[in-house]
């Protein structure tokens, strides 16, 4: 299978559901951001905040872990299209900001995963890493999917 075939196969697959690869990307990014909100909310509950939510416990921790895993999976098609097909572009401020954040996001994700597993780090490290990751994702979404929904079209 040649590289061009990979692109065509991806496009064929995605357009069986969505009108275009760009629309698909916008919706996958939206799903990832929605799950990031779940991540931040459940993390806050784990840290004893947001008392109105159900009691802290195994269920909240499970939701936190799985929302993170699903959010990561949702970013993969976006990564494939943005990084390996469109690549680094800076034609205007919005796209330039998006390119910089998009380049950073997996690095922030990798750092956050390592911080989770390192119990020797100070207590503020994990919330700081998590909020940095959620903020990066949110800004990435605002400079792409939100722009698409507002300026191009809100639909599949």
């Amino acid at each position, binding site marked *: 299978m040649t590289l061009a075939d990979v692109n065509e196969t991806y496009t064929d697959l995605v357009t069986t559901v969505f009108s275009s690869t760009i629309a698909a990307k916008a919706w996958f990014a939206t799903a990832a951001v929605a799950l990031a909100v779940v991540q931040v909310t459940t993390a806050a509950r784990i840290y004893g905040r947001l008392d109105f939510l159900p009691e802290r416990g195994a269920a909240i921790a499970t939701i936190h872990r799985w929302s993170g895993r699903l959010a990561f999976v949702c970013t993969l098609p976006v990564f494939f299209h943005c990084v390996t097909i*469109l690549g680094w572009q800076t034609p205007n401020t919005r796209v330039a900001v998006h390119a910089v954040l998009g*380049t950073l996001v997996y690095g922030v994700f990798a750092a956050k995963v390592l911080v989770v597993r390192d119990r020797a780090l100070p207590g503020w490290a994990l919330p700081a890493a998590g909020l940095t990751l959620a903020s990066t994702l949110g800004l990435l979404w605002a400079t792409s999917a939100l722009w698409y929904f507002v300026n191009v079209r809100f639909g599949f």
Partner: protein
Amino acid sequence: MGRGWRPILVGAGVVAVVFVLAQARPFEPEAPSGAPAAGDPVRGEFVFEQNCAVCHGSGAIGGSPGPRLVGSGLDAAAVAAVVEQGRGVMPAGIVSGSDRDDVAAYVASIASG
């Protein structure tokens, strides 16, 4: 160096790999010979919705009097030529320059669907 630097170093390494990959664009489709300058399909969809959707329908699914372009099999060069020269009731030069190239890239991206 303390182990606290490990997440930052690994994260920086991942950023470097993503940056190199984004520069290489390994799955970027090759432009056919004779095609117009490669346009930006994302911006092209924006230009299309502003200038073309009134006839071809939002998302190019077909309208009145513009035909459906999704799955039409058109390539970017063919789209650019029609935009430039017009066809039937479609006037020539509705968009030009980089707008034309962007629209051509967008329509070509949905034409194979």
